[in-house]
């Protein structure tokens, strides 16, 4: 059952009904006991009354015609027996058979198929035995009528009670349905927080959760918008540069301007080609399923030297490679390792603009690279691995994808990247850390 209102209604209604039933049971038990007590007292009193009226042995033996009892009339039956067992007298409606075995006091007996409750007085002086009894069936009927009298109004009131509970619940749930219709009326763009101030305290945690979800959705959307904006900027700006330079080359009146424009076009095409290469690498990394660890251990040192060889450093930049890296080999996907190393190296190359160095070193659990570039402003460190994010210290030819690719590729080979500014001066320090020591 999903409707809270229906569930509450049923629970409330059932609880009320149960309480009523308990009350009925309790009343019927107590009133039956009370009734028994009262009726027994009446039997006893009636027997004493008859006994006191009886003069010893002078009763006529002509019994009156028995009548079948109707209603509660003739409820009591009376017999007077002589001690030698002759029926001396009986009231109308009393059976001819003895109501009780010769005894004294209360007893129960079945006479002619009916249950009787009898009080007997035996008087040896007068030589009579007086028996007064009533039918147990009649007693039960009395109790039944009493209970029915209690239940009838209850049953009549039950639908009214149900209606009342239903209406009260509707009123109680009104704030919920108001809120629901307010949220339902919104379009998909509207994810402002729902007002919590006037909400019932039970609903507030739910609204709080809803609002925090809204906030998360908004943040995700904003992130998506930023990403689209970054991507559009990074893709379209080089195109705009290319087009402008091409138009200059076509329109320029003198050869020097034309040649310069063509050189700019070359630079731009090279940058665009690198951007395309990185986009493809990114797409491959994102599409590829998680790699099984390679069987073959890939040595880091030679891989690094090959990359450094293919990315010539500008004059004045010194690249150092720790010889200890030659002994470091890990069972990882070769392509992922190359992507990490190449992108970190290119990133360092782009940021070391003046004379300075790039140092690759072996450290416990991994590899570390340090450069003499400007580093990354502390507030931008958490964001530099985002796609297309280029911070304040961005290089002129970067794409904003290098560190994204390096981070993803590191994850692909079970490692993680740790980016920090060097403690001993300017420049960035990136560590490739394998959490475990396997395969080292």
């Amino acid at each position: 059952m999903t409707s809270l209102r229906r569930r509450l209604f049923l629970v409330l209604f059932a609880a009320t009904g149960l309480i009523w039933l308990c009350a009925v049971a309790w009343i019927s038990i107590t009133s039956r006991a009370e009734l028994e007590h009262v009726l027994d007292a009446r039997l006893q009193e009636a027997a004493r009354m008859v006994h006191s009226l009886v003069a010893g042995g002078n009763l006529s033996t002509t019994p009156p015609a028995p009548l079948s009892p109707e209603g509660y009339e003739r409820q009591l039956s009376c017999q007077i027996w002589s001690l030698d067992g002759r029926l001396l007298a009986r009231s109308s409606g009393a059976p001819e058979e003895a109501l009780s075995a010769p005894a004294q006091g209360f007893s129960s007996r079945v006479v002619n198929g009916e249950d009787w409750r009898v009080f007997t007085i035996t008087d040896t002086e007068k030589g009579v035995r007086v028996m007064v009894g009533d039918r147990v069936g009649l007693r039960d009927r009395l109790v039944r009528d009493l209970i029915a009298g209690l239940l009838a109004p209850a049953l009549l009131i039950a639908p009214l009670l149900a209606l009342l509970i239903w209406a009260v619940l509707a009123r109680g749930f009104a704030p919920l349905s108001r809120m629901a219709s307010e949220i339902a009326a919104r379009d998909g763009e509207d994810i402002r927080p729902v007002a919590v101030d006037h909400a019932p305290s039970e609903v507030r945690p739910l609204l709080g959760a809803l609002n925090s979800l809204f906030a998360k959705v908004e943040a995700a959307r904003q992130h998506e918008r930023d990403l689209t904006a970054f991507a559009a900027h990074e893709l379209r700006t080089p195109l705009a540069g290319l087009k402008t330079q091409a138009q200059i080359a076509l329109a320029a009146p003198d050869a020097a301007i034309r040649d310069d424009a063509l050189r700019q076009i070359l630079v731009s095409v090279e940058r665009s080609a690198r951007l395309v290469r990185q986009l493809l690498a990114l797409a491959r990394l994102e599409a590829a399923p998680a790699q099984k660890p390679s069987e073959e251990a890939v040595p880091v040192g030679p891989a690094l030297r090959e990359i450094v060889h293919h990315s010539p450093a500008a004059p004045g930049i010194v690249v150092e490679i720790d010889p200890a890296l030659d002994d470091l080999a890990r069972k990882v996907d070769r392509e992922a390792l190359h992507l990490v190393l190449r992108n970190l190296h290119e990133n360092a190359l782009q940021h070391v603009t003046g004379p300075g160095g790039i140092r690759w070193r072996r450290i416990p659990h991994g590899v570390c690279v340090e450069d003499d570039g400007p580093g990354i402003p502390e507030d931008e460190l958490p964001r530099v691995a985002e796609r297309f994010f280029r911070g304040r210290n961005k290089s002129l030819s970067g794409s904003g994808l290098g560190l994204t690719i390096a981070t993803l590729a590191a994850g692909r080979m079970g490692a993680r990247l740790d980016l920090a500014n060097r403690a001993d001066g300017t420049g960035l320090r990136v560590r490739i850390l394998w959490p475990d020591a396997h395969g080292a």
Partner: protein
Amino acid sequence: MRILVVEDDPVLMNGLRVGLALSGATVDGVTSCADAEAAISAGGFDAVVLDAMLPDGSGFDVLARLRAAHDTTPVLMLTALDETPDRVRGLDAGADDYLGKPFDLDELAARLRAIARRGHGRAAPVLRAGGLLLDPATLAATLDGTHVPLSRREFAVLAALMERPGIIRSRAEIEERMYGWQEEVESNAVEVHIHNLRAKIGRDAIETVRGLGYRMRAGA
């Protein structure tokens, strides 16, 4: 026409410098929000080409701060975001025009001429002083229907004087219109150009106001 270009991409910046100079503009370039705000508040630009995404912030914010400070310099937003909502946002933020990347160089130059013209309170594309007509789009000048050959610098000086007929232009103002920041200003260049211009369009066309500068003679 003196233009400030705010763009951090080196190839595009180079293209804008060279390309806009080919259409007769004097171009200065900056690469960050901070530099852009400093340059614009120093004044003297007929129009600004503003990129939206800069390394130290958003071009939209620069624009908003500019307009909040009651700066009326015409601004053309040049951005990679050129969906309709982006254009609307840019124009509503105070931009005078909006162009998405990649763009056509000639169109950009024409749009800049248009917003610069409006910035000077003119609607007509051709500058006119008596029988002298100056067309910034073609860099051509005619005097009573006859073509007057002008160098790029001469054109800039004449345009500066004719944009606001009757207003005195100081020597420094005219120099600003002729040279970008990186260009070497030749001493007495203004005098030399004025002298040459007078030879081409008539001795009385440009009036020297001693100690203040130059202006176009009203009846010329």
